[in-house]
């Protein structure tokens, strides 16, 4: 009887310990919302070197013929919310040609950011020290979006709302495609 009671007590104690551990882990995975709360406005990123064709392109990123790089940083508050938007709220796993660049003080910090905000489902590159972004494109602001067409940086934006950004870029792409088709027709 004593043994049964002792085992039952131990199981209950273990269950309570595990419950608290799970709650603590869950709390660390919920990013705090702060900063511009998903402002839908997209603003130009003035510092970016538009027209520049990068001399180096990290492996694993989409072809710069048609790519969008979302620039996040470990020291940027709203970047945590952007990560949440990408992963689950509402989730943008279907965004072809998009990749995430994580600028951080060190590779370890970048890896922790990717792990904590579950960005492993996207093409991701860690830019330790932000060196690549700063040297190639003059960019040192987040959250930012760099748009590449035909291997060159054609536009750069500051954003907080991923859906708004995506919508705006798709509209620009659609308009550009229509203009190209019109130009081709006229040439014929």
């Amino acid at each position, binding site marked *: 009887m004593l043994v049964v009671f002792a085992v039952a007590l131990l199981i209950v104690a273990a269950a309570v310990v595990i419950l608290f551990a799970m709650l603590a882990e869950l709390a660390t995975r919920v990013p705090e919302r702060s*900063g511009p709360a998903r402002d839908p406005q997209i603003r130009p990123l003035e510092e970016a070197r538009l027209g520049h064709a990068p001399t180096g392109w990290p492996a694993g990123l989409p072809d710069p013929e048609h790519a969008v790089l979302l620039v996040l940083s470990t020291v940027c508050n709203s970047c945590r919310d952007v990560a949440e938007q990408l992963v689950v709220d509402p989730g943008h796993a279907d965004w072809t040609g998009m990749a995430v660049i994580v600028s951080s003080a060190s590779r370890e910090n970048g890896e922790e950011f990717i792990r904590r905000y579950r960005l492993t489902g996207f093409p991701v590159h860690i830019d330790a*020290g*932000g060196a690549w972004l700063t040297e190639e494109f003059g960019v040192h602001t987040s959250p930012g979006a760099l748009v590449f067409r035909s291997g060159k940086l054609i536009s750069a934006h500051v954003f907080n709302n991923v859906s708004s950004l995506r919508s705006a870029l798709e509209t620009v792409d659609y308009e550009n495609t229509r203009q190209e088709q019109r130009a081709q027709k006229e040439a014929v």
Partner: protein
Amino acid sequence: MSTQNDDRNGSKPRTRLKRRRFLGGLGAGGLAAAGVIFGRTPAAYATVSVDCCNLCHSPSISLNTCRGYSSHYIWECEQSSSVYCLCCETAASGCPSGVKSAVSCYLN
């Protein structure tokens, strides 16, 4: 009929010893499990929010001082549509106690 080897409760000393060892083992196992769950020391990472910056520690130095460190990391974030902030840390892996931070905001 009780025998010489039985105690007052009627259980044999060997059985009691086995029970004690079993319970002791269960307790030790529980403590070990708790130690594994809570004993892992995850690397400490940024946890302090200052304006739009997410830093290891509260700012304690000026931006120029932070820039003076050979291995600093500095990045910019958007506080609002017209205000941007520079977030600087004397770079390191994780957030060890020696890391210092600075924040400087300006109108765009």
